[in-house]
């Protein structure tokens, strides 16, 4: 199956939220969860989008 590598797309974004389309391309970004939802309102296929938190790092978490 292989993992879904979104690292290259995410690299351009350090904070806030992004919206991925089905091909895992970023089609919108915003600073807050409310704003990203407002930004994707205009898309007819918005229910296909994955909203993902942007960060400058994802490594180093212990839970």
């Amino acid at each position, binding site marked *: 199956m*292989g*993992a879904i590598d979104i*690292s290259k797309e995410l690299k351009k974004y350090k904070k806030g939220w992004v919206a991925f389309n089905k091909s895992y391309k970023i089609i919108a970004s915003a600073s807050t969860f409310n704003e990203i939802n407002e930004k994707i309102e205009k898309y007819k296929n918005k229910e296909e989008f*994955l909203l993902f938190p942007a960060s400058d790092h994802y490594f180093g978490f212990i839970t």
Partner: protein
Amino acid sequence: MPKYPYFIPEANVYKPILPVILNFQKTHRITNQIPALVDSGADVCFCHEDIANWLGSMDQKTKEHKEFTTANNEKFIAYKENISILVCGKQYDCPFYISKELPRQTPIILGQLGFFDHFKVIFDLANKEIEII
């Protein structure tokens, strides 16, 4: 057996993430797909306050509050809210604990109560997939 891919948000970082949809029946608001970290070390499920607020959940004193401890021994308080979750093709009411203290990289955490009590989970990092039964 349904299998779901790991996500790579940063080079050499592999996350067992499942896309989920949350549905808050009190307000009829439904999220888009959002990433949820499958975390066998978490006792319960968590949801970041930003998402809960968007859904229309309000932190009320009448709700059940609990104290949690992070891996570095810090404490935080979260309140309980039942939110419907659609995950791995199954929809059910899930008791989420809402907090603004969650790392923003992991706004949803699927823990033992609320997720692992609904599914059998096999982490297969060698094949970069999670098997959910």
